């Protein structure tokens, strides 16, 4: 019974996190695009030697333009999604096995 409740709870978490992951990923993407992070990061490939000599300013500018809120939202949604998947994959079979035992017994 407890396991059943847990499975329902984790299924709910799975659904919410799966739904939440979409806007969170969109937020992270628009953050990367809008903040200029992509353009700044491209300097590492187009002007490698100059970027190496001014690496401190380069790293700071990258960190400043990192879309932290979007990344955090996506990370949290992904964390709960994978965590609930792990729990469900482990316990759903256990639940069906115990049901089988009840039917047979």
């Amino acid at each position, binding site marked *: 019974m407890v396991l059943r409740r847990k499975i329902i709870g984790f299924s709910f978490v799975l659904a919410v996190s799966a739904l939440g992951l979409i806007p969170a990923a969109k937020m992270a993407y628009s953050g990367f695009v*809008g903040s200029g992070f992509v353009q700044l990061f491209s300097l590492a490939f187009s002007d490698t030697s100059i970027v190496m000599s001014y690496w401190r300013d380069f790293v700071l500018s990258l960190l400043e333009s990192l879309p932290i809120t979007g990344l955090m939202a996506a990370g949290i949604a992904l964390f709960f999604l994978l965590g609930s998947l792990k729990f469900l*994959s482990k316990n759903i079979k256990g639940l069906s096995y115990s049901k089988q035992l009840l039917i047979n017994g």
Partner: protein
Amino acid sequence: MVKFMNIDKFFQSKTFKTILLGIGGLIALLLVFKTGMMVGFQKANFFCRWSDNYHQNFGGPRGGFPGGLGDKDFMEANGAVGQIIKVATSSLVIKGRGDVEKVILVNDDTIINRLKETIAIDALRVDDTVVVIGEPNNDGQIEAKLIRVMPEPSIGMKVDGMPKRFLR
């Protein structure tokens, strides 16, 4: 069925546990960094300098903007991406994220690159899209170390992932 078994094994594996821990660690790291950024912002005060010197740099309200500019407070101090709106002999004004203008100072050490060649400041044009890395000064300006002129976008296309609405 075999595929399901493989997925099931993957979810119970150490690799999966490591991935979960990695994501958790990343979240913690981002939280710490976010806090550091907020505290650092208070100390660094780049926005205050920018705001205090707005009248001098751009001809805006004397004494800066009372109450700040909302979420524009968190402007990047060590880099800038945007469109040139003015070119002078030793400085540029660019319009970046949120239509915020920034003064970019150019000195003898500043490297200005367009494609594979190094150019002089007078080769820069209004409407060029540039990426700048440099250091903030006490007047709310950025002393540029590298200015990279980005390739021109096609009409209606994105510039390296940056939508056109950002540029205009």
